[in-house]
C-alpha cells in the first residue's frame, strides 16, 4: 500500500452517508467510459453464460499480465511491491499478499472493475483479476498453483483471492 494511502487511512474514516459512498465508488471509473462499459457488459451478459464470461475475462486478465511483465522478484514482499507498482501506476488500487500455511491470500483493494461494469456483473467481471494474478504467479514460478477468487468484490472493489494447489 502506498505510504500516502496508509497515512490517510489512519486519519480518515469511511463515509457514513450512502450517497457519499456511492459517489466515491463511481469516481473509480471515468464518466467518459462508464456508459460504454456498462452497455458492453449488458450485451455480453445477454449473449453469454456467466461462467463463459468469467472465462473470457480470465483470458483478458492473462493477456494483461503478459503485457505488463513484472521484474524478477526473490521474495514475496518484492513480488507484492512489483504488483502494486503496476496497479498504482494505472490507478487500479494495490495488492497485499499474506502467507498462510496452506494458501497465499491475495487482497486486492480498490479495483475499478465493478465500478466500470456495474455491481450486477461482479460475479463474472472478477475473472479479470484472477487471470492477471494467475499470469503473474506463473511467470514467478508458481505454475502448479491456481488463483481462485474467494468472494465477490465489495462495493469498493476490494477482492479476496487465494493462490493454492
Amino acid at each position, binding site marked *: 500500500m502506498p505510504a500516502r494511502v496508509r497515512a490517510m487511512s489512519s486519519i480518515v474514516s469511511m463515509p457514513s452517508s450512502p450517497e457519499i459512498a456511492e459517489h466515491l465508488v463511481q469516481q473509480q471509473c471515468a464518466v467518459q467510459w462508464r456508459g460504454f462499459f456498462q452497455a458492453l457488459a449488458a450485451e455480453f451478459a445477454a449473449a453469454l453464460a456467466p461462467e463463459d464470461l468469467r472465462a473470457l475475462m480470465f483470458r483478458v486478465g492473462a493477456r494483461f499480465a503478459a503485457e505488463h511483465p513484472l521484474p524478477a522478484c526473490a521474495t*514475496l514482499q518484492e513480488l507484492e511491491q512489483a504488483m502494486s507498482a503496476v496497479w498504482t501506476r494505472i490507478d487500479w488500487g494495490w495488492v497485499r499478499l499474506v502467507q498462510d500455511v*496452506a494458501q497465499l491470500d491475495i487482497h486486492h483493494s480498490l479495483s475499478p472493475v465493478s465500478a466500470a461494469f456495474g455491481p450486477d456483473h461482479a460475479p463474472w467481471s472478477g475473472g479479470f483479476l484472477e487471470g492477471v494474478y494467475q499470469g503473474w504467479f506463473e511467470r514467478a514460478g508458481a505454475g502448479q498453483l491456481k488463483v481462485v477468487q474467494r468472494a465477490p468484490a465489495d462495493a469498493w472493489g476490494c477482492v479476496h483471492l487465494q493462490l493454492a494447489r
Partner: protein
Amino acid sequence: MKHSDDIVNLFQQFGAKADPYHELARQQEHKLSRERWPLVSAVRDAVADDVPSVDRRAGAPGAPAPQAAAFTPAPASARPAPAGWAQPAARPAAEVPPPVVAPAPMPMSPADRVPPSAALAARSPLSGLAGLRAAAAPSLSDAAAGQAGSLPADLPSVFARLAGAGDAPARPAAAWQPRKGHP
C-alpha cells in the same frame, strides 16, 4: 483545588517557621475527594508502577543506563539560533546539567508485535477497568498469524510449500464461483 496559606504567611510575619504546622483541612479535602471519585484512586494505584521517573540524569533512580553508542545532542553553540532569539550567556560548567542520554531501542520480541492500539490498551490503567486488558492479550488467531509470519518468504520456498500442501485441505471447500443461470 483552591487553598490558602494564611497560616504559613502569619508565621512568616513573626519570623517564625511554619514547618511543624500541618494543614489538616487539605488532607480532609483529599480524603473526601477520594471517597467521592473512587476512579481517581483506582487510576493512581494502577499507574503507580508504570510511570517512569522524570529525573533522567545518569544515576538517578529509574533513569536509563547510558549506552556507549547513544545519541549525544550537539552543543548549543553548534546549533543555529532562530532569528530574533538571543543566546543566553554561557553558564559556569558546574551549573550546566549533564546531557540527557536517550535510551537505546529495545530489541523487539514476537510478543511485542501486537497492534499499537492493543499495546497501548495493555498499558492503560483504564483498559483494566473497561475489560480491555483481556482483549489486548494475544489471541489464538494472533498466534496463527505469528506462525504464518515465521514462514520463509523467498518465492521458491513459498511456492514449493503451497504445492506440497495437497495433503492438507489447501482451501475451503466452498470456493465462490458463478453458476449457470445465477449471474
